[in-house]
């Protein structure tokens, strides 16, 4: 685990405790908590993928649902149409997502589109693709693509057919794998170059950094990671609809966690997911208990909480917490 060499002793202990308790959680936690944890891991994973582009390389993507949707649809279609297993499907989905990422990156970075303009470019691609899938006969058009659930496949874990424990550990592995990958990338040459580009492109170029190539690497890695999340989603839910999976609201949902947790940090996406998903679930229970049954009440509180968080800790909760816990490297 050389990539975590930078952590001080206390941080290493906390990380080990965190991983161990999550690994053992299914022993104690009930099914509801497991299902919430699966969602947390999923959003932490996607947040990590998005964080590479925005947190590291400084490229604001508001269309990441595109890559998730492509990873989901490609793997699901290969499985339902040709019986190709999800592991192979995952790589196919990755390839397609990376091709789209490359197209967006090439257009955006070649023509120097940045900031909000780049964000709009990513939205335009995601929406364009959503409507295209709404019209694609091969994947059931807007009517949706349904993955067959057969009893005889119920325990084919290698085909991602199985119960909640399978998906729990899969999601946990995704989240921890993404953490490891991002830590490794961050420590590598490319990680430093991403930060340089994020901070100041002209200065980065003056230091011999090929900004275009560096940004392309970010979008390629990020889109590939997001597409893997999509494959997971497809086999977890077993049905896909363009209007849901490619929707802009999904893109927004997945970037809240890394921003709230701490943009550009390794722990931020995880912490953000551990704050926001339980916040949503907790607010459902809390408004119910308080007798506030009017639909929308929960969401109003959720929105207010988002505003409060960014008001109090604009650069994210993790940088603040890290200081409080004394995990700052001296």
């Amino acid at each position, binding site marked *: 685990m050389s990539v975590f060499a930078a952590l001080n002793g206390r941080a290493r202990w906390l990380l080990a405790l*965190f991983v161990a*308790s*999550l690994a*053992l*959680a299914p*022993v*104690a*936690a*009930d*099914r*509801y*908590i*497991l*299902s*919430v*944890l699966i*969602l*947390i891991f999923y959003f932490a994973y996607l947040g990590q993928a998005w964080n590479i582009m925005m947190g590291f390389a400084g490229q604001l993507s508001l269309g990441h649902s595109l890559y998730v949707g492509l990873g989901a649809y490609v793997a699901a279609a290969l499985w339902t149409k040709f019986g190709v297993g999800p592991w192979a499907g995952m790589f196919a989905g990755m390839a397609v997502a990376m091709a789209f990422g490359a197209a967006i990156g090439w257009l955006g970075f070649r023509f120097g589109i940045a900031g909000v303009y780049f964000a709009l470019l990513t939205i335009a691609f995601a929406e364009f693709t959503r*409507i295209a899938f*709404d*019209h694609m006969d091969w994947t*059931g*058009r*807007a*009517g*949706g693509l*349904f993955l*067959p*659930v*057969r*009893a005889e496949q119920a325990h084919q874990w290698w085909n991602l057919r199985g*119960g*909640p424990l399978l998906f729990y550990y899969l999601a946990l592995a995704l989240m921890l794998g993404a953490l490891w990958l991002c830590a490794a990338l961050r420590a590598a040459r490319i990680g430093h170059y991403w930060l340089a580009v994020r901070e100041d492109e002209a200065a980065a170029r003056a230091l011999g950094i090929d900004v275009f190539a560096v940004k392309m690497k970010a979008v390629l890695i990020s889109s590939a990671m997001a597409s893997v999340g999509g494959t997971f989603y497809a086999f977890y*839910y*077993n*049905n896909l*609809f363009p*209007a*849901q999976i490619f929707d802009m609201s999904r893109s927004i949902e997945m970037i809240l966690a890394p921003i709230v947790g701490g943009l550009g940090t390794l722990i931020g996406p995880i912490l953000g997911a*551990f704050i926001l998903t*339980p*916040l*949503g*679930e*907790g607010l*459902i*229970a*809390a408004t*119910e*208990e308080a007798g506030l*049954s009017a*639909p*929308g009440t*929960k*969401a109003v509180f959720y929105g207010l909480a988002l505003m409060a968080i960014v008001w109090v800790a604009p650069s994210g909760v993790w940088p603040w917490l890290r200081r409080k816990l004394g995990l700052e490297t001296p």
Partner: protein
Amino acid sequence: MTLKTSVSRRAVLAGAAAGSAALAAPAIVSAQAGTLRIGVLLPRSGLLAQAGQSCHRGALAAPRVLAELGYRVELVHVDTESNADIARTQAERLINDGAHVLTGAFDSGHTLAVAQVCEQRQVPFVVNIAAAPPITEQGLKFLVRNFQTGPQLVTNGLRLINSLIAATKIDPKRAVFLHANDTFGQAQRNAMDAIFPRTNMPFQLVESIAYDPRAQDLSVEVTRLRSLRPDLVLVVTRASDAIKLVRDMVRQRFEPMGIVSPGSPGMYDEEFYQALGPLADFHVSNLPWVNPKSAMTQALERSFATTNPGNRFAADGFNAGFTFEALLIAADAFKRAGTTSGVPLMEAIRATNLAEHVMIGGPIRFDEKGQNPNIGSACVQNRGRTPVVVLPEDAATMAPVLPMPGWQGRA
């Protein structure tokens, strides 16, 4: 809510780390003896809120009617926020909190998300509304659907168009099929493409047009429709699109013989009547409907009036009726099974045979796939800003009128 479950929620709030999760051991709380606890999952906020709240009003009216019939149920209402993730986690939570049966979930995607949870936890799931055929094609053992599939809706809808033509003696030559390009609309389109050529209808289907359900404006769509000069316009809309369509037809002075929905929401919803006033009249929806002549429907209508004083039962009939029936099926099975335990309760649900119920059609029964094949469809025409059953004759309270009167002298 019991103490135990509130602990489990706080545990989630606290971050759901394993240590605290230990406190939240499965909290299956037995309900009061002799009461069936049913979790009702509906999209009451988000994109599907209009339909979800309409269904919810039916669920609110249900307990009194069920109590009168001697059933003892306790309902737990949960909003899925039109989000499959929330539908799934909340299904888990409801079961943790002691729900014996789940109903819902209006949307096909949400329904399948909940169905997986129910299948794994062996808790019966009675679908109120969801039309995607795969729901009952997956071999799910803990799911039944008391709703028509897309192909059934279209088959019945087209058959009723034939009856409608015979009853009103109109002679349409050309028809255009216009549908929202969303999950439901696409399912209807698939069914239409497959079924229409085999039905030998007396008119020609000139074109099928899909429109964008997110579009703010449908005036050009109506212009295109007008250019095709259809006698009949067959529409599959969502609640608010139907208003835009009719409004633009009026503005563009386009008057077909009739506007008929072969099974979709839109033209019987309260907002349609509110927005269009007299122009809302004479449109026809062919779809499952509450049987106005059934005693149970009348009881439900009375209860609905007290629980939802601000709403008309007539406009909510479809959504409220099916939501009520899902609860009825669960309550009845519980009465017969005498237990809240999932496996025997599910057996009882599959053995359902209810002759008395609220929707038009034969007795509620389920085939081996868990699908009720006996749901009838009615021809419902808007008259005096109220949906009125005009066909089949045994359920009709008025006779159908087509071609519809011109827009002009209405307002």
